[in-house]
């Protein structure tokens, strides 16, 4: 078991979670909880793969995946922002709609064979850094590098720019933002769209880079839900979201690699000596998500974690604010 290889693979698989988590983070920061991440990711994965087959150009595939998932997210935006419906119900429905559409349109795609994939390469100078170079900058897909750029940019945008201030204002106290002349509705529509696009990008990352291909709903395998949990774990902060995503990415590979060595930290490796133990590790990311959601269901805890105050609340103009 080579720790560097595991972490290297973990960073690649973690990039999927990274995009989805940061996308959901944007939507939630504007006050809209979108539980449709899984469905949007599936739409993204399916669109990216099928468009790439049709055009031969994976970049067109990525762009169309983001657009398709972004458009899907607007259904949720319309229902929750304009029609003021319950965000949880609408988000869950969006998952079913996205899953269903992607299964129907993706029928037969699984046998399409190989397509042009996004390029992987090493970054010349950075790859020479001991340890970190091998993990982060060697033979990674270009999307992984885009993930590195997105994380600080998202943090900077949310915390240090006027646009980010507006985003936070709308998510914390929409009535005040409205009084200041911000268009709460338009802002929320926009960030739900951003969230959708990033979920689509996450899907495209699977089908064009990390595990190329289309495998019906097994393509995402519940990662959209983990992303929703990670947003809470990350306390709505992009830097923490990135850390969590990479840790979970590495854990996916670790579950398999840990079956290899006989000795672990000087002890008999239980994962080598009894394969049943692997079930336990496989469960961990999902158990974590359940736990985080249960903890996040406590209003007081959520407040302390730093949740946007208006998260989940439809904004009705003229009603008293929060």
């Amino acid at each position, binding site marked *: 078991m080579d720790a560097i290889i595991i972490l290297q693979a973990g960073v690649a698989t973690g990039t999927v979670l990274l995009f989805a988590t940061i996308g959901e983070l944007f939507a939630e920061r504007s006050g809209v909880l979108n539980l449709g991440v899984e469905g949007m990711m599936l739409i993204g994965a399916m669109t990216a793969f099928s468009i790439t087959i049709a055009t031969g150009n994976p970049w067109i595939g990525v762009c169309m995946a983001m657009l398709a998932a972004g458009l899907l997210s607007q259904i949720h935006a319309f229902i929750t922002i304009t029609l003021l419906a*319950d965000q*949880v119900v609408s988000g869950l429905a969006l998952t079913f709609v996205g899953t269903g559409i992607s299964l129907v349109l993706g029928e037969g795609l699984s*046998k399409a064979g190989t397509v042009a994939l996004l390029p992987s390469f090493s970054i010349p100078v950075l790859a020479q850094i001991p340890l970190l170079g091998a993990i982060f900058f060697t033979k990674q897909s270009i999307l992984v590098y885009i993930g590195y750029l997105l994380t600080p940019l998202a943090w900077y945008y949310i915390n240090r720019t006027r646009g980010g201030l507006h985003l936070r204002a709308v998510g914390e106290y929409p009535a005040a933002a409205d009084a200041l002349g911000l268009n709460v509705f338009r802002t929320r529509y926009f960030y739900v769209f951003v969230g959708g696009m990033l979920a689509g990008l996450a899907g495209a990352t699977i089908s064009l880079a990390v595990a190329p291909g289309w495998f019906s709903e097994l393509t995402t395998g519940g990662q959209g839900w983990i992303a*929703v949990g990670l947003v809470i774990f990350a306390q709505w902060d992009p830097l923490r979201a990135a850390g969590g995503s990479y840790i979970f990415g590495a854990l996916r590979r670790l579950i*398999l690699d840990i079956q290899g060595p006989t000795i672990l930290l000087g002890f008999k490796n239980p994962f*080598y000596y009894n*394969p*049943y133990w692997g079930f336990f590790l496989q469960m961990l990311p999902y158990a974590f998500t359940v736990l985080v959601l249960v903890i996040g269901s406590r209003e007081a805890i959520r407040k302390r974690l730093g949740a946007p105050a208006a998260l*989940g609340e439809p904004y009705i103009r003229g009603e008293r604010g929060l």
Partner: protein
Amino acid sequence: MRKYPMRLAFLAMALILVLSACGAPPATEAPAEEPAATEAPAATEAPAAEEGGFQIPDIEDGKFNVAMVLIGPHDDGGWSQAHYEGLLYVEQNVPNVHVAYIENVPEGADSEQVFRSLSRKGFNLIFGTSFGFGDPMQAVAEEFPDVMYIHLTGINSNQTNFGNLMGAMENMKYLAGMLAGARAKLDGNPKLGYMATFPIPEEIRLGNAIALGMRKTCPECTMDVRWINTWHDPIIEKEAAASLFDAGAQVVFTGADTPAVADVAQEKGKWGVTYDWYGSCKVDACLTTPYWVWGPIYATITEGVIAGTYIPGWDYFDAETGALGLFGFMEGQEMQPGAAELDPAVITMVQDLLAQMLAGDFTRFDVFTGPINDNQGNVVLPAGQSLEQVDLDAFPEFGLPCSIPVCMKWWAEGITAELPE
């Protein structure tokens, strides 16, 4: 009013996650099969009576009607597709037969309704191709004594109208192991990998067959094992293949369904051995594929049932039935590039042994003939002694009368893994 919706929402989500996890394909001790995709069940043939969401196909009067119940889609490119093609073979080769299938049928209560409806419709012979169909089929078989039920990969039979069917895939895995060993030796990296599904006798038997073959052509070779706890999950299969290759394996075998091992091998410049269906060996990095050809065996059974001569029981076939294949080595096939480069002596050895198998002179019991040692240094079988049928699909804790104390609970020499406790 303000506070509760969100709290409820999160709890509801948590609940949904738990429920969906419980609803996931059960990790039962099932021999090779594809857990159901949970998508909408589709039906086939003429639209007819609907039962629990499944379109039950019609029979054709005056013909012998054969139905097949599949756990996955009929064109899944693996397990179910191999069975579906077997059904088409029956249609084309057995006179006066009408065939129909139902796909994406989950195991359990749903399947019992499907089997009952098919029986009520008047089908004469019904195949169920997944381990979990066993109990429902047996229950329905009691109700319809005139219908014959054949269950694939199962363990039970009532010896009147509910029978069991499985084949000696260990033969082909043994040959593939010989090729893989030779390949690893040629590449100067004597290490193999085996991606196993669940710790059940079948997966250990097939892994042992690979290792025994491997040691024939490459005595210094070893084999790593990864348990993935699923029959069908393309993403996990890819990750497990990558894990094995990264740990140093030169050739990786899969016990699961998709050709992920070959795809990942292609990326890594190594070799993969796929499984189940001859069409799964597409890329150059695919060394070979041990696969099923269900057609002839299904046709023989169908003819036997029509003639009233087939006695259901525990039908376990060998390669001479024509129901097993090794891609690249059967008549009319070309060797994959990775196999064609091997030492001609090895290729001849594999071809000769395959010919013996197809002639019925080399069977599963010859694969498991001593001297065989396990990877702990114990003698499993002394020279000249062979395993018996009961040993092949049993662990000691099953309480079956195995011929050796460990039944199939041992890893052959060269496998770098431990047994499930």
